[in-house]
């Protein structure tokens, strides 16, 4: 009851009617042959009709970028006859291939737990395990492993305090997209917060697509595998023949 009252009290400042107007330096990322990661500049401004009252809670901004969800299998190695072998495995129903949270301050302090739950923000919210098999004793360790491994690979990031906010109006940050990126729609959301509550959200999508030669090869390998296989062999045979002939000429 007290919590509900508290929330109602905190909701009061929303009457302020603040709106976030966000933009990205690019809405499309093309993975071409020389793709080596990309940097996205996320920026925006706060639109408001009335001035901020003096007693208002400080303004905070949270930006999330979430790659396409994947079903993944997580396996755990165990020692078996002296060597380390994959034993237990769990299929995790949903894990984004990329996830970055950028904020203006410590996430737990600037955003309440209820709001994080409602908007699905945080690694424990986006990596979801619906049903774990009974044979595995500690399924939580597997979801934690996904977060840990992806953090090590630069695919999951929590960048507390990386957003610069000036005069409670303009904000900007850089988000690095690593080179080992997969294709798909990267959902981007910008949250305005006051007193731990979301005041306004702006959503957009970054399209990450293989382009040019990469697109062509990937599509062909998956849609015409037989032709692709035959072509690969032809290229190999041509290269082998070419080398043999070139070398024969050189020797003369």
């Amino acid at each position, binding site marked *: 009851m007290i919590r509900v009252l508290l929330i109602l009290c905190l909701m009061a400042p929303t009457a302020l009617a603040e709106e976030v107007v966000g933009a990205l330096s690019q809405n499309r990322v093309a993975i071409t042959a020389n793709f080596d990661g990309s940097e996205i500049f996320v920026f925006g401004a706060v639109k408001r009709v009335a001035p901020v009252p003096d007693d208002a809670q400080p303004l905070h901004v949270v930006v999330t970028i979430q790659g396409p969800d994947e079903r993944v299998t997580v396996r755990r190695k165990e020692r078996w006859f002296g*060597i380390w072998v994959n034993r237990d*495995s769990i299929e995790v129903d949903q894990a984004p291939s990329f996830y970055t949270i950028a904020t203006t301050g410590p996430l737990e302090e600037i955003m309440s737990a209820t709001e994080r739950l409602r908007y699905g923000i945080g690694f424990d919210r986006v990596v979801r395990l619906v049903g774990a098999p009974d044979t595995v004793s500690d399924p939580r360790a597997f979801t934690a492993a996904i977060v840990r491994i992806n953090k090590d690979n630069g695919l999951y990031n929590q960048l507390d305090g990386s957003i610069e906010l000036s005069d409670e109006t303009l904000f900007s940050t850089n988000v690095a997209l690593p080179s080992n990126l997969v294709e798909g729609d990267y959902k981007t959301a910008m949250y305005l917060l006051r007193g731990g509550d979301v005041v306004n959200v702006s959503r957009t999508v970054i399209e990450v697509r293989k382009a040019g030669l990469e*697109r062509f*090869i990937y599509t062909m390998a998956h849609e015409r*595998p037989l032709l692709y296989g035959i072509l690969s*062999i032809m290229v*190999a*045979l041509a290269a082998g023949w070419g080398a043999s002939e070139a070398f024969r000429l050189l020797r003369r």
Partner: protein
Amino acid sequence: MQIYLPIAEVSVNAFLLLGLGGLVGVLSGMFGVGGGFLMTPLLFFIGIPPAVAVATEANQIVASSFSGVLAHLRRKTVDLKMGMVLLAGGLVGAAIGVRIFKALKEIGQVELLVTLCYVVFLGVVGGLMFIESLRALRRSRNPMAKLPPRKHHSWVHGLPFKMRFRQSQLYISAIPPLVIGASVGVLAAIMGVGGGFIMVPAMIYILGMPTKVVVGTSLFQIIFVTGFTTLMHATQNFTVDAVLAVLLLIGGVIGAQIGAQLGVRLRAEQLRILLAIMVLGVCAKLLFDLVLEPSELFSIGEAGH
């Protein structure tokens, strides 16, 4: 220069790949081995997913062995009939191998099997080569020591379905070449190698073929087996990376020519010891990775199809 590999979905340095292709090419040119057994583990080390490394390496071996077999055909050192028999076994073996590979990929044990195969075969081949070249080195210092006589009649000659292989000057049963072909085919598919490093000793010591036709014949059937493996991997597992293959084979083809030149000038026994040490080194690294507790016990893979 970083380059994004479309199938492996990782970004790697193009010059590193060219360099690796070149390095392994030099070795294969120098020692007459395909080099797949060194290249595939090296690809694992630089972070290419094992499934892609194995399939793509098969494609690269098509190029290097075709280049080699052309030279042997000109010298008429290919026993086509024996090659066909080995090939018949090899294709059956490769088809089985790709299926095993696919099944293991689904239950998440493909890495283990590939690594175990490597540890066993690199260990055995490296060890044998090391001992053999040490002996040869000793023999060259002591020219009075006699070569052990070659056995001309073994259990192989007692089997049915005899065939005449004119180029190899053999009249033997077709069963041993079929079986050897099939087992090398399975290995080729699982390990992403041509299998020359197993095929060549088997042809000399089990079939008793004359050394001069062994390499050409082995290369001849390797083209078809690895070609078939490439096709099977491409259609069943979608794991052949054309960009990776091209980079490796450019390096490999140039390296092989340099290696062939170097091989003529340098002393064979010492070179073989070096190769043996390198093979054992790769084997030891893979073995340590299996035995030592990994820093990360968990791994993420694609969900089963």
